[in-house]
């Protein structure tokens, strides 16, 4: 760490881990949390701070990773950690970064690069906290990372649907019944694409899945190194909310990618880069049918063929019709041109 008295807006330079054996062994998220067996989000927390290192402040908005994760006297956090309100991950990141910057620039605190990470769940991030996150992603003079851990429901409060719950999923707010099979008919928000497309000065947006741990950590390191506000969307299989055997969390994460439902990519300075099996799909490898993913989960047990076909068609659309496949949902320009000339 640089010992300097003059303020610098620089970030820590966190080089990517070149393979799993090069990953540091120090842990900054340890025992003490009380998450469920097979909880992928707890793994995301552990990997997130492993990637960021010790000179980090973490802000956690209300959700599983607060309520189940951080109990008085048994905190798992080795780095400084603070709760923030459900819709406040954006504001927490911004306020913490601004406070540090003010004190360092005015010589009231030793100047150094401190990572600021705020995390939120899908409810806190994509529903209630969307406005604050959006605002923070426009404040380019403050360095912070907002990490959205998406277990696709308000899982801490009893599994209620959120704006990121997939079409048709059985939640306590969308129970299938004799009269209505699918109460939840909305399609999942395209959260990372929304953040990347809507905030031209946000230099780094990425999607991750902890099934691909090294890639996930390296994206966290890139987000913290590049500077300014950044955003990462992590898909986290949830045994309790998705209703599957906890031993399958890792496999379900892989299937979400292989079926093309959740693409792995980053957008750095406007440049889209696909990763791993998503990249293979873009390059022509066949996607696995979505039923292989959906039918492993109790939350879709009520699905009939019609639902599976609808789900498959929507995912096909992401890949076949979107201007930037699985990232930007505008229809492809060639299709638009054909439509215009036909008229």
């Amino acid at each position, binding site marked *: 760490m640089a010992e300097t008295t003059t303020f610098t807006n620089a970030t820590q330079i966190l080089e990517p881990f070149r393979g799993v054996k090069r990953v540091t062994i120090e842990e900054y998220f340890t025992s003490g949390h009380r998450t469920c067996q097979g909880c992928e989000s707890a793994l995301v927390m552990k990997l997130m701070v492993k990637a960021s290192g010790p000179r980090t402040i973490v802000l956690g908005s209300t959700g599983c990773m607060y309520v189940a994760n951080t109990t008085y006297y048994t905190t798992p956090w080795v780095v400084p950690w603070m709760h*923030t309100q459900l819709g406040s991950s954006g504001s927490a990141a911004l306020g913490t970064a601004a406070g540090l910057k003010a004190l360092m620039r005015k010589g009231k605190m030793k100047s150094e690069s401190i990572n600021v990470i705020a995390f939120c769940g899908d409810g806190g991030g994509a529903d209630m906290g969307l406005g604050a996150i959006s605002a923070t992603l426009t404040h380019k003079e403050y360095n912070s990372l907002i990490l959205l851990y998406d277990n696709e429901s308000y899982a801490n409060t009893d599994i209620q649907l959120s704006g990121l719950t997939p079409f048709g999923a059985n939640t306590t707010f969308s129970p299938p019944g004799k009269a209505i099979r699918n109460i939840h008919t909305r399609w999942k928000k395209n959260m990372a694409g929304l953040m990347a497309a809507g905030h031209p000065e946000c230099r780094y947006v990425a999607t991750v899945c902890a099934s691909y741990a090294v890639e996930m950590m390296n994206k966290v390191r890139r987000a913290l190194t590049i500077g300014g506000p950044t955003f990462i969307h992590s898909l986290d299989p949830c045994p309790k909310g998705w209703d599957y055997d906890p031993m399958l969390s890792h496999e379900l994460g892989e299937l979400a990618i292989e079926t093309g439902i959740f693409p792995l990519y980053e957008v750095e300075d406007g440049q889209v880069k696909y990763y791993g099996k998503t990249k293979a799909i873009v390059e022509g490898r066949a996607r696995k049918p979505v039923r292989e993913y959906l039918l492993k989960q109790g939350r879709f047990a009520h699905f009939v063929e019609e639902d599976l076909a609808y789900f498959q068609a929507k995912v096909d659309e992401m890949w076949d019709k979107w201007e930037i496949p699985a990232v930007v949902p505008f229809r492809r320009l060639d299709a638009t041109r054909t439509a215009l000339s036909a008229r």
Partner: protein
Amino acid sequence: MAVVTPAARAASSEEDKELLISGSEAVAEALALADLDVVTAYPIRPYDTVMQAIAKKISGGQLVAEYIVAEGEHSQFEIVKHASTVGARVFCGSSGVGWMYAMECLVVTPPLRVPMVCLVGNRALDDPGAFGVEHNDALVVRDVGWMLCWVDTAQEALDTTLIAYRVAEDRRVFLPLAISADGAFLTHSQALTMVPPKSKVDRFLPRYDRGDLLLHPDNPITVAPQANEDWVIEIRRQNNEAMGRAVTVIEEAYADFRRVFGRGPENPWFEEYMADDADVILVGMGTISLSLKVAIREMRAKGKKVGLVRLRWFRPFPTEKLVAALSRAKAIGIIDRDYSFGSPFGSGVVANEIRAALYNSERRPPLVSFICGLGGREVTLEDVYKAADMCFAAAASGKSDSKTHWLGVRE
């Protein structure tokens, strides 16, 4: 020919300068002197004039601070809350329904022991739309650990802002503090105001030191984990004790303010105007004091012994001192610029607080409750004469009527 020596220059930098400024601008002067670190703005009338004044100070180079325009009051208050936890001196504010939009953040700030200082430009709550003053906005946080005070003049707004940081950031307190200024009547009205030099402010106001509560990699604490029934009641009790300690800290701060600046009240808690020998004491908060003082002078000229107690501090509530001041009158009249529908006797908040404060007192003069000036309506001299007459009737009979009288209302 006068020669400006370094000593003379130093002496002149010790002098106050007199400026014609509004209440909001006076607060901004104090914030620049207090070397504010982080401030968040969001527009709503009338408090936002303070943010306009701060923005000018920042663009003009008189204040170096992180100045963030938030996307709503919820974020506005959350951003400074978090900035304060890493050691920054912060300022925020709002009015009316804007303050309500931030309510979740207002509730979490005291238990986090964040010494945020805010300006509430008091404004009627929607609906229907009204820009004028009512005190219900600030009063909504009276139970959750905010210190609340009301100021009356631009000078008092400036001085109280400096005192507010001294009190809130005292380790014995560490609670947020909201300074209420009546919308338009004070936020927008200009008066000659003495602005002290920075050297004096530095002698009065120490740096904010978050100490062992600092959120920093060198002090890796976990703040606000789930506590549940295991610990919540102890944490509430600590909040209450901090509010209790604030009483001493406020008295110390005012005494020190007088020592350094050579002005300011001896009694921090309330202003007494012709109250010493008064048979009837009227009580109010904020700029209503102007109508009350003029009316009192007129009534005194006619031989009616009326006085005023203008309450400055509502939280912590100066129970004993206020009871001592009020219980010597033959009758007291409380004029609320707020309402509390369905409350005991249908009274406003201040009247019922004072009723409660007097309950254990040996002398309990008849108390007459009034609601007046809502939505910024002018409080006329006739309104005050009417209120005083009702109080004199209560003094004569020794009884009050247990009703609440709305003054200046179309029937």
